[in-house]
């Protein structure tokens, strides 16, 4: 038994996947099936959602300056106002190359509404340079997820847990799903996060487009107050988020041992810092450090990868891009970042710390 095909099957469990699915259904009137988990309140995060990121390309800041207000309105409308937190994250770097990149993050953001201030020398430690980004928006995934799930349900977006469905993606990018004996089809599949891409894209295609990286998330027991609720060490690809209990979630590139040792050195000088949780997972990074958006060579499933912390805030533009309603700026931006673009050299390359912590 099969039903009429849906327009989109959006695969992914991140806020970005949920927002894209919801926007396709609500703003663009598409029939959407969303294949994703609802574990955010119970699992350690694999990523962070922030309205600013360590982006060195001005066009990225320009696009974000358009889509952040849209996303905020959308989230408020969906009932997610309480899940957004305004804060002043700190970005910092230890290495000369990282500090150079951070300088370009600052200058590229100029003119796009981001108030960035350098931190006084020595504020974060000897030899370390940092900047504070004022009034950033941070999405609390554990609070936002149930809100977006209810919103999607209200929009008639069917949610299918990945563990319960057999998903097949055809070379032309269409998808068919078998759930409890019922086969459902979708004209286009959107693989909206790394987990979805790793699960459904052929290994050789992944290797051609991405670098696979081990990642580690560590949760600590309550500890001293960090300089900011959210901190990003951009040259180690390491994010820290301190929760209301005082525990710190650290997400870093690298294997468990390397990540634990690095976090320990960063946070633990002369203090005891105990682990309360942890996981290891894999992430994808494009070969040029820039986002990967769209279908491979114009065919195959739509991919969303490498968008970093700001991905969720690009959802309105991405949804428009998928339905052919993108503005000229959006079209230029995304067209330059399609999968399979030239990456050596790449005219859209962004800073990517190549000194990520070694896998253990």
């Amino acid at each position, binding site marked *: 038994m099969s039903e009429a095909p849906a327009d989109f099957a959006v695969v992914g469990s991140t806020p970005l996947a949920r927002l894209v699915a919801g926007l396709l259904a609500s703003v663009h009137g598409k029939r959407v099936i969303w294949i994703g*988990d609802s*574990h955010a309140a*119970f*699992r350690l995060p694999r990523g962070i959602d922030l309205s600013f990121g360590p982006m*060195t390309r*001005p066009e990225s800041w*320009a696009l974000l300056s358009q889509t952040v207000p849209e996303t905020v309105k959308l989230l408020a409308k969906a009932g997610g106002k309480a899940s957004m937190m305004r804060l002043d994250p700190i970005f910092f770097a230890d*290495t000369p*190359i990282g*500090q*150079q*990149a951070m*300088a*370009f*993050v600052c*200058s*590229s*953001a*100029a003119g*796009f509404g981001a108030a960035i201030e*350098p931190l006084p020398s020595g504020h974060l430690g000897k030899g370390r340079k940092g900047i504070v980004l004022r009034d950033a928006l941070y999405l609390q995934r554990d609070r936002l997820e149930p809100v977006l799930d209810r919103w999607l349900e209200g929009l008639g977006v069917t949610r299918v*847990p990945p*563990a319960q469905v057999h998903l097949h993606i055809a070379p032309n990018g269409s998808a068919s799903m078998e759930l409890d004996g019922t086969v459902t089809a979708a004209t286009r599949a959107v693989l909206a996060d790394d987990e979805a891409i790793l699960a459904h894209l052929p290994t050789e295609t992944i290797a051609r487009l991405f670098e696979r990286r081990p990642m580690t998330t*560590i*949760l600590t*027991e*309550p500890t001293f107050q960090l300089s900011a609720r959210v901190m990003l060490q951009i040259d180690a690809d390491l994010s820290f988020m301190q929760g209301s*209990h*005082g525990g710190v979630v650290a997400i870093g590139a690298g294997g468990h*041992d*390397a990540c*634990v*040792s*690095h*976090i*320990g*050195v960063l*946070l*633990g000088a002369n*203090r*005891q*810092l*105990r*682990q*309360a*949780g*942890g*996981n*290891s997972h894999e992430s994808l990074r494009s070969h*040029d*450090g820039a986002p990967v958006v769209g279908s491979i060579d114009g065919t195959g499933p739509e991919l969303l990868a490498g968008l970093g912390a700001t991905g969720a805030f690009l959802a309105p533009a991405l949804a428009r891009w998928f339905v052919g309603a993108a503005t000229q700026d959006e079209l230029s931006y995304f067209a330059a970042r399609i999968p399979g673009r030239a990456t050596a*050299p790449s*005219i*859209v*390359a*962004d*800073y990517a710390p190549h*000194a990520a*912590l070694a896998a*253990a």
Partner: protein
Amino acid sequence: MKGQPNRLDIDKQHAFHGTEVDRRKSLKFRLDGRTISGFAGDTVLSAILASGVDMVGEFGGQPIALSGRFSPAITLGQGKAAQTLPMQRTPALDGAEFHTFGGRLRRLRLPALGNRRRSLQQNLDHAAIASPWHDQPPHALITTDVIVVGGGVAGMTAALAAARTGASVMLLEASPLLGGSAGYFGSQEGDETPDQTISQLTAAIIATDAITVVLRSQVLAVHSGRVRAHRVLVDGATVTGEVVDLAAPRIVLATGAIERLPVFPGNRLPRVMTTLEAYLLAERYGVWLGRSAILATVHSAAYRLPMLLTDAGVATHKIADARTDPQSRFIEFSRAYGIMQAGGTIPALAAPAAKGFGLAVTLQLSFDGYAAHAEAPVPTDLLLVCGGWQPDLTLWHMAGGRSRWNAERHRIEPIGVLPQIALAGSAAGHFSKHACLLSGQDAVDRLFGAPRTPVVELTIDPAYETLDAPTPKVPRSETTEQVSYLDAGLNLIQPPDPRPSTKRSWWPFRRSEPTWSLADQPRSLGIVDVAAGVQLGGIPVESAGIVAQERTVASGDLIDAARLALLPDLRPAPPASRVPAYLVGRFGSEPRVWIVAAAEPRILPVGALIFVNSDQTDSRHAIGAVVGHEGDGAIALIGKASPQAGEGLTLRDQGRSVAIRLIEPVTTPLSGAAFSSVPSPA
């Protein structure tokens, strides 16, 4: 037995004389200045319990029971953290002077009057029970071919199977002897007794040179082919503890199962004890608290304990079974002993008895969602509880193993495989001794790539042997002071308090009631905490495996881990002569490198953008940027067509316009430190 009120008499024939103690050799030691009597073969914990101390201290004003899973660390003499020992793995030594670790600082100032003699007087509000060995660096690294964690029947079988392949094997067991908990579960008809099985396996292990048995060794973590263990070493009158790392290409985890604690108010009071711990204390050390008991169980094998107790002179008032009409050979046997049984009945409340050290236990009829009024409290010396069994997957999860909730069995079970690690026995989810023995062999088969051994459960039809019921859970009532806990382990996690807020609902500053989520707890969780959290709705069923995997971690000090591991070098040699990748195409297709200078003396910062004039602020319109310094000058990448030396441009530095000039194009190689990542002009 003077000074040992909780030691069972041996004037009658029974199973609880204490296999490990030599009653002819009395000993005395001191703990925090208090004299403790015991026998040779006792652990510090068994001697303390035998001497009438059954309480660790108070938490939130409520007494907390002393047990093998919840006891403070001790030191021999006034030791430091590095010399701490676990009292359940430390032998009692005649004449020794032990101290609870940190005890002097955390002692209760005013313990409840009746509790002084029975309590270690720890103030648990001040600090959690510490296991300082989790933070200690390893003393040595030992390599072997196979490590087997757990000296129960599955682990013993695995060790022998691995040795038969020619491998060297280290068998690590936390307790002072091999055999695990097989004796508790008894035997099936026609099967040899657990004692016979253990004796045979022990003899075979002793006869096998390739197997090294390390008793009193608790494994703290498994990761990347390494096992970290804390072992207690006994050398005559000296006992020390040390952390060691063991490396092996193959690891078998035969970690057994943890007995669940029914969740009801008062479930961690002194004299509330899980049945396996009570059985092992009695069987190994002849220790029993009191002379009367009530058993509340969801599991049939627990019925064996009252029968064995009757022989030892301990009366069981009642067996309350959460199952409405349980069937089991053990139940039939216990009826023959004349013990009163009540189906569909769970413990609703335990409270300290008005007099003496006993309890007043309230039972309640409860089945199919129906809960009757509680019965009148019944006095008893001891409440034995069994809330079912949870495979101990703690190390499995640490090693990266996955798991999921089994709704039929009400427990978290392992799924998938790990390349170097295999589960065996109850930890793998097996039930019968027969299956546990086979699984020990099968685990080794898998690790060595040998043909697998089929693991067959010898189970009895549920019509004759009723499956375990879910762990009972009773909410805290409005009237009781007693609180409930999710598990009997180190975490003192309580379920949500359903009692309404005392503040009026219209009170403007009344805080909204928080939603209880176990995953919010800012500490590592025990696997039983997670299982209980699932049953209490604090963790969705589909998230149980993820929470268990992510949150049942080794709770060591991250800083020590950092000191142990080599900090990765985050300062790679800068690549020579190339534009940072993120500047490619940024300033046209053929940008050139120039030395630039400000019109007035100042340093031009790296990253500052250069514009044709001061009106432009949009970073997309920049024609260049400062990328480095050389001597007093700044090095810039300029994408302007036909740039001329002396030409004026504008640089923006933190929102301010700065007039600059192009000095000269760079034609000579620059020093790497200043300019290594920018190309020389073509």
